[in-house]
């Protein structure tokens, strides 16, 4: 701007610099919240409700996934030996198995141990084992896989490597069960992703429209600021900070409500089902997820305000 604006002053706030501006815009945002209590409460309430629904879904999903992951502990590979190896050879064999990627735990089961287990399983019917030599049951290695190696293809690849070890005659791992379990998990994750996506879109829609309405209610203020010479940034900054504060407040309220629902649900479910809630394994959202919900609220408030402001600022 040249001649016409020689007298015009660039916005130079009471406190200069980034923190000075941040402090000014934050105090303006807080004043706006105070001056528009009802509208702000509606926005915070909507964000809190929307995030509560999303967090409830997340809580259920996380617990169900945790339970399903627990079932995958049953994925176990058993490697049978032709002949029972000597104790020193057992240690060497265990070492070679441990060296295969994906091995979590290896337990050697001798022929004697195998017979002992069989006997305990047939308690009361031991006569069935009369005349059978203990040598009939082969020695074996029972191998647990870590979580990343429990899907169908990873188990098959693991077994292939295991079979290459000399001395192992046969490997069993409940191929059908692993396949069915992994199909179930894939379906579960797909459903979770679909439901989660729909829920996210719904939450975005509701929150952005609420913010749009609240900003529409203040369009005169936006118009006036533009007419007295405020820059786009000067007009937008307090509204964006308001959006962030409202989003964060909404998220915190939703988490507090979720905490209440969680304890109420656990207590009631325990009484109703006659189970110990602790043993049912239901847990609250982990810290990372809690931080995610708060961040989600902040982003919702910020993006909702930013997109709505675009329409009403005429500078």
């Amino acid at each position: 701007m040249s001649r016409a604006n020689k007298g015009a002053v660039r916005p130079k706030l009471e406190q200069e610099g980034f923190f000075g501006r941040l402090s000014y815009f934050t105090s303006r945002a807080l004043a706006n919240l105070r001056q528009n209590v009802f509208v702000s409460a509606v926005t915070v309430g909507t964000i809190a409700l929307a995030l509560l629904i999303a967090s409830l879904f997340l809580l259920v999903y996380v617990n169900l996934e945790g339970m399903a992951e627990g079932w995958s502990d049953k994925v176990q590979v058993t490697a049978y030996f032709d002949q029972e190896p000597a104790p020193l050879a057992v240690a060497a064999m265990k070492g070679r198995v441990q060296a295969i990627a994906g091995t979590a735990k290896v337990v050697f089961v001798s022929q004697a141990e195998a017979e002992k287990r069989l006997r305990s399983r047939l308690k009361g019917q031991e006569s069935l084992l009369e005349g059978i030599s203990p040598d009939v049951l082969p020695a074996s290695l029972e191998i647990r896989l870590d979580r990343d190696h429990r899907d169908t293809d990873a188990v098959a690849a693991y077994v292939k490597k295991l079979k290459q070890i000399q001395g192992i005659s046969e490997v069993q791992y409940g191929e059908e069960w692993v396949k069915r379990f992994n199909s179930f998990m894939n379906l579960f994750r797909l459903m979770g992703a679909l439901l989660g996506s729909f829920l996210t879109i719904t939450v975005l829609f509701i929150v952005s429209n609420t913010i749009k309405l609240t900003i529409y209610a203040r369009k005169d203020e936006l118009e006036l600021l533009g007419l007295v010479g405020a820059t786009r940034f000067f007009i937008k900054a307090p509204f964006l900070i308001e959006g962030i504060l409202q989003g964060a407040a909404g998220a915190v309220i939703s988490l507090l409500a979720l905490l209440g629902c969680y304890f109420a649900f656990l207590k009631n479910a325990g009484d109703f089902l006659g189970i110990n809630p602790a043993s049912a394994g239901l847990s609250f959202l982990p810290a990372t997820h809690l931080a995610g919900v708060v961040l989600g609220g902040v982003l919702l408030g910020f993006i909702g305000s930013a997109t709505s402001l675009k329409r009403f600022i005429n500078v």
Partner: protein
Amino acid sequence: MIQMHNVFMSYPPESSALADINLKIPKGDFVFLTGQSGAGKSTLLKLIYADLTPTRGQVLIDGVNLTRLSRSQVPLLRRSIGVVFQDYKLLPNRTVLENVAITLEVLGWGKRDIGKKVYHILKRMGIEDKINATPLRLSGGEQQRVALARALVNDPKILVADEPTGNLDDENKEAILSIFKEANNRGTTVVVATHDRRVIENSHRRVIRLDKGSIVHTPDFMVAGVTGSAGVCPLEEVPDVQG
């Protein structure tokens, strides 16, 4: 100086608001803009503070062509122009102090300086006792003074007012006009749009009369006591346009 050069303004789809406007308002002048409702007075004022861009032609403020201003330059221009809107545009949930302070906050003034400056301007307007009231608790005349205070608080180069005496009684009209005159005496160029004949007659200032979007001949009674042109500037007198 405010200049308009072959300015046309039409609203979509095909409603013509202004047609071939040529005018020159020198620095420090006090001009009334008159005409019936729908004559184009408000549109002409909006062109001055860049709320509208002409469909054709050029608007210049102190030699700067507003049609060539970038979006980021518009706020800088508006800071040098005080505007009194027809509907006042006071924010109902803010106090008088906060309403007037907006103009200074935009300029980056500190809180303490804003308090002093706002108090002084409200005192000039005679409403310093209303500093903590909200606009809805004020009378029409008081609201108009708050709007005037907001427009004048940063000593603008130009003051434009759209029907500032529209809903006021005679006493308040006089008071508002004397504030305009005082601002003009301090060097501010004043442009007031009004269709109130008595206000114009009593003020003895230059008049630009609009009819159906065009400037028409100004009757003598409307320029009583004033010498010189009635604000209509022949095309050849408009200087070259510079951005």
